């Protein structure tokens, strides 16, 4: 217990860093991923191509490489971002590709008759997507998006290797300083991640039940 009390400020700051990184990257991924999904089903070929290129690039590149590119690669072309901002960008841009695919699967799950009907009453493509298709699509993709979110929270741990003092970095620091209490250090860090992921999992399952479509 003494260990937790002594290191509470450090662990709290690390936890808050992981949490804020997750929320910011999650927001970026959700917005960008949805836009990309809209591009992917749009009738405009260049937009479809752009979105496909984005998804295939980020989905098939290891996240660590994306980190390296943003943290150490961009400064070489005179576009330096801070370590925290860079880490949020890396996780967010990477996860957007997975969000895009999840949302696209939801769009495809919406009965084509819906889109045809909205076109028949004179809605544009954008309107039908916004008003008719996406609201239904999001309801079906709550479970897969929940998976993407939880995976993303854990992926933020890569930022520990890129100068962000989040939970995994505190694990490295504390385990070196308290070699005798390694298990306690591990416990503290695991609890930190679980606080985020387990509460999210609970929230996701509640939301899933609330928005479920009865077919």
């Amino acid at each position: 217990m003494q260990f937790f009390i002594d290191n509470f400020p450090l662990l709290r700051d690390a936890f808050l860093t992981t949490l804020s990184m997750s929320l910011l990257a999650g927001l970026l991924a959700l917005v960008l991923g949805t836009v990309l999904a809209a591009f992917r089903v749009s009738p405009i070929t260049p937009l479809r191509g752009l979105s496909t290129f984005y998804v295939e690039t980020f989905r098939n590149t290891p996240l660590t490489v994306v980190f390296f590119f943003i943290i150490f690669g961009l400064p070489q072309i005179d576009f330096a971002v801070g370590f925290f901002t860079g880490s949020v960008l890396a996780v967010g841009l990477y996860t957007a590709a997975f969000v895009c695919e999840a949302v696209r699967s939801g769009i495809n799950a919406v009965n084509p008759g819906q889109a045809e009907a909205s076109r028949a009453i004179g809605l544009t493509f954008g309107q039908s997507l916004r008003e008719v298709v996406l609201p239904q699509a999001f309801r079906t993709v709550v479970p897969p998006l929940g998976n993407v979110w939880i995976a993303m929270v854990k992926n933020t741990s890569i930022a520990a290797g890129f100068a962000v003092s989040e939970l995994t970095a505190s694990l490295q620091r504390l385990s070196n300083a308290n070699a005798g209490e390694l298990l306690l250090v591990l416990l503290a860090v695991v609890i930190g991640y679980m606080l985020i992921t387990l509460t999210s999992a609970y929230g996701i399952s509640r939301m899933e039940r609330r928005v479920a479509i009865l077919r």
Partner: protein
Amino acid sequence: MRITRYAAAFAALGVVLAGCSSEAGDTVEDAADAPVEVEENVDFEAGTTMAELAEAGTMTVGTKFDQPGFGLRTPAGTPEGFDVEVAKIIAAELGIAPEDITWTETVSANREAFIEEGRVDMVVATYTINDDRKQRIDFAGPYYEAGQDIMVAEGNPLGIQGPEDLAGKNVCSVEGSTPAEEIRTNYPEAQLTLFDVYSKCADALANGQVDAVTTDNVILTGLVAGSPDQFDLVGNPFTEEPYGIGIPKGDDEFRAFINDTLEQAYESGAWAEAWDSTAGAISGTEAPEPPAVDRY
């Protein structure tokens, strides 16, 4: 050193191609590889480690294989560096030629165990003398005093001369390492940027994302050697890490012998020569004043 080695390699090749006696080739190689003279007639009191090793004519030395300037394995398979040269000086005093030394890689975690199990006769591997380790093994030396130092961008644009100058600067190290703790505790005004490996610190310094990198000067020397036109070493160590030679616990005669040999090498200049041809050549620094050996 490198030029002479190439020259030696070409010379040896030429000799072989010309079909001359291989004796001439050996002489050229020896001249390049062995700056120290191997003792011809060695005589030690029977029963001592020295007598045993001299009798066998061979010894096993543990060193690092990944530490540029101190112990780095070459593509040819043998390590080179300051630690390696020091080991050669001691072996030569035992009448053992450099090519009769068997090199074994020892990493930080297995050095005591290798000595205790007798898998190596001695360890020369950037091995800091401390009381914890003295419980299990004995140290001859120190033969070098390392310390935490600072690496800056080429030309030192911020004029950083020591740890006091790091106040308000962004300084890079590795999370959980002793150097990072040192800065955190004693120089809290410095801003720490912490990666998981030092190579990322070097990348960040090259990009201008941090102002300085700090850790043991030995590691920094290797980084500077990798990109001499990008980085400079401040060369003002502010902690003390005496490097000793690890030998089995209780072998006081062997320890005294190594200490004598080191003092001899200090005086004859062999020690400084070893520095100049290895770590000194990489870092461009002159041989420091050798530390006094500690005959505890």
